[in-house]
């Protein structure tokens, strides 16, 4: 893929026309400015987006967000809306970490209140919230409890004493996807997730304390209770091993079913089945159950954070919780009901909070979705900064002590379970989050509300 193959729609949107490749059903669009496009073209993310444009039943456009980078099958930062009547559902369009997402909590305290106790607070978070490979969670679920978690998501966690009804009102879909069927979740998936509820995991997942450093929209910030120099907490994690196994099981099933359904795809990782088929419906029900596990996971982590958050008279309230790896049946202008696949993309319905975490040394953002997103991007926005450096390269090029020194100079306390985990997630491994957000804002699909700077990061 070369730049000459793309047509500029406007300064922040480019399109690969349907004529680029004979098997494309729709054009492929990428939200980016010209400078970032050059970087995007260095990996195979747009070739992967072209493959997505060939999926049966895809409508209008295959879309990549400005944080797009090469994945497997779908690019990370990809959106596809597919007609459920004659189209497919593809587990690769959601990914292995089903309902990986972000939750944002708001403290009533200011930076001045928190700074003197920041180190012990970060240590308490690291002790209180299990993270890393192999660290089990605070609850050993009985089979019946797991069944209810898979069916009812965060609502079941609240019923178990981990939060309040008010929490549920501030979670995407109320923290429960209605199409979930626990019976569709395999024994292996249940076993893999059995002791992982309430755990962060490893990789790019984290708990982070942030300081509000910029307010862009006073009115919206007030709606979310945000003030300059206020304190927020972000949680980034998903459905853990349970979701990974649901995806593995489903992709294997669809690999076998494709020939029977007369479907061929340019990349086997796009394995899919008609949405209205036993395999398609089975996956949707299992994926929804795994998504509910993830909503419950973030609910238990919220409860753990609240337990160790010992600042006087403080309450951590949820601002919002978003999924960025999920498929949902939604109605959109011009196309009606579609199954929207978001892989590394955040729902951005008008007025809805959109949470965009940066890397551990850079800013994160709160945006709100805009009506334009409903007409252009199936109500979707970006999900993060997007990687530009491989983990291998990061380990070779970034010295752990240098990184710690830099973070210290930035006033960031880092509590990491492993050296490897810290250097792989160094700020230089990611794109410039400010540039990514500017594209989204300038394209009009979401508007900026506030920016946060990390002051403490807890990682596996």
């Amino acid at each position: 893929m070369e730049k000459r193959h793309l047509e500029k729609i406007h300064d922040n949107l480019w399109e690969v026309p349907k004529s680029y490749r004979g098997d494309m059903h729709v054009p492929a669009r990428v939200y980016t400015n010209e400078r970032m496009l050059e970087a995007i073209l260095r990996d195979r993310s747009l070739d992967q987006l072209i493959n997505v444009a060939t999926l049966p039943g895809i409508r209008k456009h295959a879309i990549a967000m400005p944080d797009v980078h090469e994945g497997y099958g779908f690019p990370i930062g990809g959106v596809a809306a597919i007609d459920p009547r004659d189209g497919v559902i593809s587990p690769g369009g959601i990914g292995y970490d089903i309902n990986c997402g972000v939750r944002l909590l708001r403290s009533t305290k200011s930076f001045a209140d928190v700074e003197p106790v920041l180190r012990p607070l970060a240590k308490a978070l690291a002790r209180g919230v299990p993270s890393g490979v192999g660290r089990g969670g605070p609850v050993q679920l009985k089979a019946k409890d797991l069944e209810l978690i898979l069916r009812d998501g965060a609502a079941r966690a609240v019923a178990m004493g981990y939060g309040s009804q008010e929490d549920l009102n501030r979670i995407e879909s109320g923290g429960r996807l209605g199409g979930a069927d626990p019976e569709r979740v395999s024994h292996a998936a249940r076993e893999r997730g059995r002791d992982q509820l309430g755990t962060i995991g490893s990789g790019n997942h984290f708990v982070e304390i942030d300081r509000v450093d910029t307010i862009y929209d006073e009115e919206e910030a007030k709606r979310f209770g945000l003030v300059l120099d206020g304190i927020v907490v972000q949680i980034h994690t998903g459905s853990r091993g349970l979701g990974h196994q649901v995806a593995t099981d489903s992709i294997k099933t669809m690999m076998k079913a494709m020939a029977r359904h007369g479907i061929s795809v340019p990349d086997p990782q796009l394995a899919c089945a008609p949405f209205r088929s036993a395999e398609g419906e089975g996956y949707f029900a299992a994926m929804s159950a795994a998504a509910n596990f993830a909503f419950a996971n973030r609910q238990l982590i919220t409860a753990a954070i609240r337990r160790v958050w010992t600042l006087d008279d403080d309450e951590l309230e949820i601002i919002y919780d978003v999924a960025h790896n999920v498929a949902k049946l939604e109605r959109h202008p011009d196309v009606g009901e579609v199954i929207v696949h978001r892989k590394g993309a955040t729902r951005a319905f008008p007025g809805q909070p959109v949470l965009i975490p940066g890397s551990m040394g850079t800013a994160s953002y709160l945006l709100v979705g805009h009506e334009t997103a409903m007409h252009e991007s199936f109500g979707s926005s970006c999900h993060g900064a997007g990687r530009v450096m491989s983990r291998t390269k990061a380990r070779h090029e970034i010295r752990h002590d240098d990184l710690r020194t830099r973070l210290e100079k930035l006033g960031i306390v880092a509590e990491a379970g492993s050296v490897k985990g810290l250097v792989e997630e160094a700020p230089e491994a990611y794109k410039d989050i400010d540039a990514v957000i500017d594209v989204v804002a300038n394209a009009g699909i979401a508007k900026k509300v506030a920016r946060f700077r990390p002051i403490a990061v807890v990682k596996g």
Partner: protein
Amino acid sequence: MFSVEPHVADVRLRVNAQTREELFTEAMRGLYSVLHVAPGTGARPISRHVVVDSVDLTALMVDFLNEILSRVHIGQEVFAQAKFATLTDTEVACELTGIAPAELEADVKAVTYHEADVHQEADGSWTTMLVLDI
């Protein structure tokens, strides 16, 4: 033989061997190297019979490795040797011997089908690329 190659977000593993059986065994070892497995406290010898069937040889490799991955996550089982009773283009049946429990230093979510292509080179050796989602 296996080697880890860069991938912007995940891990790309190249595997080469003289026979198909060796290719499957080497790929398993490559997966363990990414996971950084080590014997856990009180690790004891184990033996497991594993059967996997798939649509073709490449899918069989991926599905076999995902079976191995599930076992390491669920039962902390790690295998050093594989004795193959059957290894066709669509089915593998083998006796795996190793230890449990094992400890992991890194996580792998899944072995993907993306870029996977099990094939024989002109010199008769076998090779594939594998992308692991981490």
